[in-house]
Structure formats: structure tokens, C-alpha cells
């Protein structure tokens, strides 16, 4: 690695001889506990290994993420970790990093182009499958189903919906009575669910594409007094929804522990920088969480 005068000057105040490793983390959004946990995991990984970590927040806008990546690349990074807003749109940013010869790891969502040294993430279609299969199991393949989708036009929302509907479509006893979007947002999901409850005297199963929405839907369902009739599954396994599972309010969620995603991405990056071999494609397991395993599941460390 060639020495860099400017950064030396800047770091001289710290009085360190060895150059600290710099890693950039471009997050798609931080307006969501899931991703906040991703970045917290990454921060933990960085702190444990004395890595300087720069985090940006693209606020769910692919073009902002492009900007963020360009700005991060001005900092002579050793490695760039990207949680893409969108698989297609991120390609250009990755190519920019490739030009500057900064190695890239993608997490959560894979990129559809550009050169990455590795991808680590969850399979959102698979996650949707799990949710569908869970409802099939619990409802014995028969019932009226509601789907609450995430932010329209984003990969995850699309893929989870796709995975969920793959199962629902082939289950003859299922009738989807409502498919609406609540933008991964709790307050919005509550409102949408309130309206769905008004329109449908019978609802048997609800899939909310993340836990925030599941918790919003839960508020509406509870208020309508129909908690017992309805099977509710979310996704993410965030703490409040685990509690709701313990309290028998939500039946299930799907664990894609974000903390470890962030942490492992940093660790894997360090391995790469140390010249070790790493896997190119690591799909972390999405686990169904129900009352049975809710107390054994580990979603983060302190």
C-alpha cells in the first residue's frame, strides 16, 4: 500500500505509527431499527479490531447512495461495505469503487453487476416463502389472508412479496382478501390494518413484511378485539416483536439478525485485507421464530 501524505498529516495528532485501517459503510437507510442494528454490529466489529469506520445513510434513495459512495471514496478507504438500496442501481457505485481499486463487500442485498469480493446476506424471497409456509402450516392451508407490503418499489419489499405469494398462490384454500402497502412503517400499518379490518369480517392470517408493520397491525387488531382470530407473522425479529411473541400477540417472525450481518461483514473484510481466503457468497439463514424458540434465539450481543 502506498503511503499517503495527507492522511498522515491528519493522523499525526493521534501519535500512531501504524496506519489505522479505514472501512466505509454505506447504508441504504438508518431510519429503521433493522438497519440501525446492522450498523451497530459493524461498529462493534470495527471497535473490537481498532478499525476506523465511516458510516453514511442514503435515506432509501439510490442516487443519494451513489453520492455517499463517491464521497466515501474521497477518503482513501481500504475497504467499502455497501448495504444497497437497490440491486441494479448500486452497480454504478460499485464500478466507481472498482476504478479506484477499493475492494467492495455487499451485504443484505446483492448487486447485479460490478466486482465485489463477497456478498453476505439474506434471501428475501426465501424469507417470504417461510412466512407463507408458516401460515399454511398454522391455518392448515385454508383461510382468508392479508398481506402488508413494505416500501413499494424496493427490492426487499418486492422479493418478500414474491416469495410469500409463491406459496399463497399454490395453496388452494387461501384467499387473499387484501394486499396493501404500509412502507415498512408502524403508524402507517396500523392505519392500513384498521381499514382492512373494517372491510373484512373474517381474516385468518396476516403477513406483514417487517416487524414494525406487524406491530402496527397488531395495535389495530388488538383494538378491534380480533386478536384471537388472526394469525400474525412479521419479519426481522426485533426485540418488541419477540416480546409480543412471548405475550401470545404475534405468532411468529423471521430472524435475519442484522447485528451479526454488520459485524461479520467487517470481520470478513478484515480477513480479506489480511490476505486470507473468503467465501464469495454467504447467505445467512433466515430462521422462523415462534413461541417455541423465541427464548433461545440470539439476535445481538452487547
Amino acid at each position, binding site marked *: 500500500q502506498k503511503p499517503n501524505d495527507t492522511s498522515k498529516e491528519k493522523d499525526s495528532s493521534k501519535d500512531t505509527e501504524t496506519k489505522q485501517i479505514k472501512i466505509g459503510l454505506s447504508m441504504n437507510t438508518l431510519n429503521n431499527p433493522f438497519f440501525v442494528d446492522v450498523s451497530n454490529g459493524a461498529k462493534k466489529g470495527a471497535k473490537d479490531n481498532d478499525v476506523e469506520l465511516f458510516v453514511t445513510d442514503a435515506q432509501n434513495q439510490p442516487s443519494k447512495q451513489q453520492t455517499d459512495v463517491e464521497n466515501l471514496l474521497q477518503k482513501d478507504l481500504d475497504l467499502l461495505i455497501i448495504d444497497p438500496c437497490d440491486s441494479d442501481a448500486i452497480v454504478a457505485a460499485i464500478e466507481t469503487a472498482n476504478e479506484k481499486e477499493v475492494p467492495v463487500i455487499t451485504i443484505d442485498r446483492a448487486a447485479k453487476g460490478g466486482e465485489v469480493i463477497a456478498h453476505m446476506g439474506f434471501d428475501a424471497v426465501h424469507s417470504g416463502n417461510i412466512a407463507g409456509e408458516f401460515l399454511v402450516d398454522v391455518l392448515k392451508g385454508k383461510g382468508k389472508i392479508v398481506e402488508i407490503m413494505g416500501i*413499494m418499489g424496493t427490492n426487499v419489499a418486492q422479493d418478500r412479496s414474491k416469495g410469500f405469494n409463491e406459496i399463497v398462490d399454490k395453496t388452494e384454500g387461501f384467499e387473499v382478501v387484501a394486499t396493501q*402497502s404500509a412502507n415498512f412503517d*408502524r403508524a402507517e400499518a396500523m392505519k392500513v390494518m384498521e381499514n382492512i379490518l373494517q*372491510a373484512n369480517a373474517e381474516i385468518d392470517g396476516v403477513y406483514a413484511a417487517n416487524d*414494525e408493520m406487524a406491530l402496527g397491525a397488531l*395495535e389495530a387488531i388488538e383494538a378491534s378485539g380480533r386478536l384471537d382470530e388472526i394469525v400474525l407473522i412479521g419479519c426481522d425479529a426485533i426485540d418488541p416483536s419477540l416480546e409480543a411473541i412471548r405475550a401470545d400477540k404475534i405468532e411468529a417472525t423471521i430472524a435475519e439478525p442484522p447485528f451479526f450481518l454488520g459485524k461479520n461483514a467487517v470481520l470478513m473484510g478484515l480477513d480479506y485485507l489480511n490476505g486470507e481466503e473468503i467465501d464469495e457468497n454467504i447467505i445467512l439463514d433466515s430462521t422462523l421464530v415462534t413461541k417455541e424458540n423465541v427464548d433461545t434465539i440470539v439476535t445481538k450481543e452487547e
Partner: protein
Amino acid sequence: MNLKKIGLKLLTKYRTVSVLVLILIIATCLSNSFLTFNNLLNIIRQVSIIAIIASGMTFVILTGGIDLSVGSIVAISGALSAYTLINTNSVILAIIVALVVGSICGTFNGIIITKGNLPPFIATLAVMTFVRGFVLVFTNGSPIAARLKAYNFIGKGYLFGIPFPIIILIVIFAIGFFILKYTAFGRSVFSIGGNREATRLSGINVKKVETLVYTISGLLAGLTGLILTARLGSAQPTAGKGYELDAIAAVILGGTSLSGGQGAIIPTVFGALILGVLDNILVLIDVNPFASDIVKGFVILLAVLADSKFKSVSSKLDE
């Protein structure tokens, strides 16, 4: 004046209500679940969030201003209120915190706009960004749970069979109506919007009134933050995003002019209801969520077109 003319006159005088009624009729035809007592209460409760913000926005817009920061104020008041609740277990304190925080933010808007002589649009845009950042830092991007029966009552409770937020809504609009009609302050709000300089020259402390108007808007955004948090049982860092546009739309649908000086507060609630009914019926008939924006945009367009048409008819009927 014959009956037809009287009818037309009423119709055009209560333009927003007329448009709303039209939408109600169509909605009733579209879904059996629409015109039920429960669903109507449900709609009004949902609408109360935007309507309360919009009532404060009406004051601001009447003076010729605008307040883009309300959404962020909803979030910060909710977050600080929830924080207070879990740390003190005092519902009263949690309520006060929400209202005070909202008022402070609003007053800050008012002061920078009047003392700094800033265009309200950009000033409140800056505050919107600023406060949102503060919420994120404060909450560290994660919701704060706020569960305590008495507290949650504010958002979820019923009084005489009516959801509590609806009661708050009614009280707020009654007070708002009263202030605009029966206080010197209210009178000045209209007159500042009509002609700021002439109002100043009439001995009215224009800057004070303007500041107060933003305080009111902030206070009501704070109240909304409280209701929303109490309702959800959790303060969301993203709460209130985009509410400013909905609130402004409600005010304009209510016939208040963005250039100030002309309008009224009661129709604002009907403006908000138009938006709320739309959201409700689109879900009731399960319109594809992708397409629902198309329908929504289209109906808003028709509503303002109808409003503008009614207005021109009404000016012809005058005198």
C-alpha cells in the same frame, strides 16, 4: 330567490362539504363496509392526526406563511414524551413535555422567521431537517416504547363511546374557530395575511402575532405527536414524515388560500376528511397499492377542480 338558487348557493358556500359528500356517496356505492358507524368513527379517528396539524397550519397559512416542520415536530414531541413517560412514569409530565416541546419548536420557527426576516418556506424546511436529525440522534434511530394505560388512553381510549382523539379534534377546532372569530389575535391573523403592512400601520404587533401563529402550529404538532405515540404505544423516529404536505393539502382543500388573508378553519377538517375517506375506501375495495396513488392523485385533482368551479359559480351568485 328561488329554491334552486338557494340550493346552489348553499352548495357553493359549503364547497368543501359538498365535495366531501359527493365522495361519501360514491364510497358508499363502492363498498358495503363503508357507511357503518364503526367505519366512520374509524375514519375520523385516523383523520384526527392530520386534521389537528392542519388546524394549526390553517393559522399559519392564513397569515400568508407556511410550516414544513410539523412532521418533524410530531416526531420529537412523541419521542421526548415517551422518554419522559418511561423514565418518570408520570402521564401528566409526559403530556406536558409533548406540548411544551412542540410549542418551543414552533416558537423557534416564529422567531427566526420574524426576527431573521426569513421566508417561512425555507426557514421551516431547515427546522424540519434539523429537528429530524435531533430525533434520530436522540432515539438512536429506534422506537421508544410508551406503554401505560392512562397514557395510551389519549390515543386509544373512548369517552361516551367516542374515540378520545376525536374528542380532542372537536375541542381543538372549536377553540380554533373561537380564537379566529372572537379574539383580537384571530382578527389580526386574517388581516396580516391580507395586508401585512396595513396591519402593522394599524398599530398591531405583526411580528408577535406571526410568532404566535407558529407557536400554535408547533403546539398542535406536539399534541399530534402525543396522540400518535399514545396510540401506537411507541414513539417512532420516522413519525410524521410527509405530514406537512397532507396538512397543507387539507387546508387548501378546505378553501383557505395559500396567499393568506382568506379562509376559515372549519372547512379544514373537511379537507382532511376528503383525504382520509380516500385512504379508507381505497383499502376497503382493496385497490392495488400501486394503483392507489393514481386514484388518489386523480381524486384530489377532481376535488380542487370542483372547488374552483364552485367558487366561480358562487361569485356569480353573490349580490
